[in-house]
């Protein structure tokens, strides 16, 4: 599977635009092992988060904090927050994790997914406060309002399928996802970063996207 992914990948020649794309990382065996290790731990993190919700278990909360807080902070820094603001958003995230843990349902999402969803919403609240956009309270913020509504519709069966799909994430998908989560999503920004002509950036992205789509077609990758 990995070899196949490599071949597709070389065909796409996407590597050439990637001084800024840590692709080798997404594809290396070492990293695959790390991902699996995380996946195995995931079950116990899910249990811990559920216990924080049901039993107000502080030990479990501290262990979740110790594992996830440095990762949340890394994400916040990479997504453009400064040191002080990232630190503040980490705190806000975990205070909310504590307060809302009773809403966590391990059948619907992994602990990591849930915690990072909280973090992303807290990040948006912080950015919105920066821009002095009128927000009466966190729960009324735009993304929270729509995201919470949408979250009510999450299917329990998704989680199992996700865990299966996790190990076969094609490199193109991993990379596009990385861009969506961490990078400014304009062609010109990519062009500037990669020092490639705009047209080249567009055509390479198109190729990668076509490959990705082939893998995601119903009856394909899933």
């Amino acid at each position, binding site marked *: 599977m990995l070899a196949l992914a490599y071949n597709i990948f070389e065909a796409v020649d996407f590597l050439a635009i990637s001084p800024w794309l840590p692709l080798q*990382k997404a594809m290396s065996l070492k990293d695959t092992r*790390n991902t699996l290790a*995380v996946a195995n731990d995931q079950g116990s993190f899910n249990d811990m988060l559920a216990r924080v919700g049901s039993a107000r278990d*502080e030990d479990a909360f501290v262990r979740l*904090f110790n594992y*996830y*807080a*440095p*990762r949340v902070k*890394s994400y916040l*820094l*990479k997504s453009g927050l400064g040191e002080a603001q*990232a*630190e503040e958003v*980490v*705190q806000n995230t*975990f*205070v909310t994790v*504590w307060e809302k843990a009773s809403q966590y349902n391990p059948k619907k*999402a*992994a602990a*990591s*997914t849930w915690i*990072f*969803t909280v973090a*992303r919403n807290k990040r*948006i609240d912080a950015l*919105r406060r920066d821009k002095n956009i009128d927000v009466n309270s966190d*729960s*009324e913020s*735009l*993304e929270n*309002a*729509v*995201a*919470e*509504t*949408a979250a009510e*519709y999450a*299917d329990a069966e*998704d989680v199992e*399928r*996700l865990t299966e799909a996790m190990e076969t*994430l094609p490199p193109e*998908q*991993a990379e*596009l*996802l990385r861009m*969506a*989560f961490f990078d400014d*999503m*304009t062609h010109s920004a990519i062009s500037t970063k990669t020092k490639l002509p705009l047209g080249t950036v*567009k055509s390479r*992205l*198109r190729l990668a*996207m*076509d490959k990705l*789509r082939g893998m*995601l*077609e119903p009856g394909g990758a899933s």
Partner: protein
Amino acid sequence: MKMLTMVKDPLQSLDMLLMRHAARRLGPHESLLVSAAAALNGTIRQRIAQYEAHGAQLMCEEQAQLAAKCLDSVMARIHAPKDEAPAPCADKTKPCPPSPDLFIPDVVHGMISAVCAQKQKQWTRATHGILRIDLNVREQTPVQKFLKLMKMGPQFRTPRHTHSGTEITLVLHGSFSDEFGSWKKGDIVILTDPRVAHQPVAGEEGCVCLTLTESPLRFENPVTRMINTYFRV
């Protein structure tokens, strides 16, 4: 379920839209539209959940040094006595139910009410045979976007229309069909620049859509469009 794809701009594709939604990187307009699509369309819901979970895995890859007192501060805050928190989520004031002639699902109406400024929603005539409601999203984005509800009567044949930039359409009620297929409630259609002729025709129940464009529609010239992405439940 079927997807037809002739991707012109990969950053405008549905998958990229869903990934950015999972990353909470969309502006309020797209965010509303994708959330509404997710509420109506199980496949989109599932794909967003997939991207959220993958995204969380990505975010777990790297760590940053926390400030020394980070955990202490958090523990102090969770132990602090509550200052009479007025239970924010429990009793959200329910938006007024949509009037029947809006033909939009309650869940989508709730989202629109949460995001859009105007209280009164009344159809106004856009052009012969088409009614519309312009939605004013409270939070402005640098790029101007036009979000509206469009309503066509049964069997109505849309005039060809022009617009530059991306157009995203979510079917909320009824159906429409065109050269590329028939699209019903929950289907999402993403179109970009002019290339391919396309003339939607409403189904027997008529059609109500939530539509996002980057320029106002102009119902004048016969102009063709590139069909970028169709996505069917």
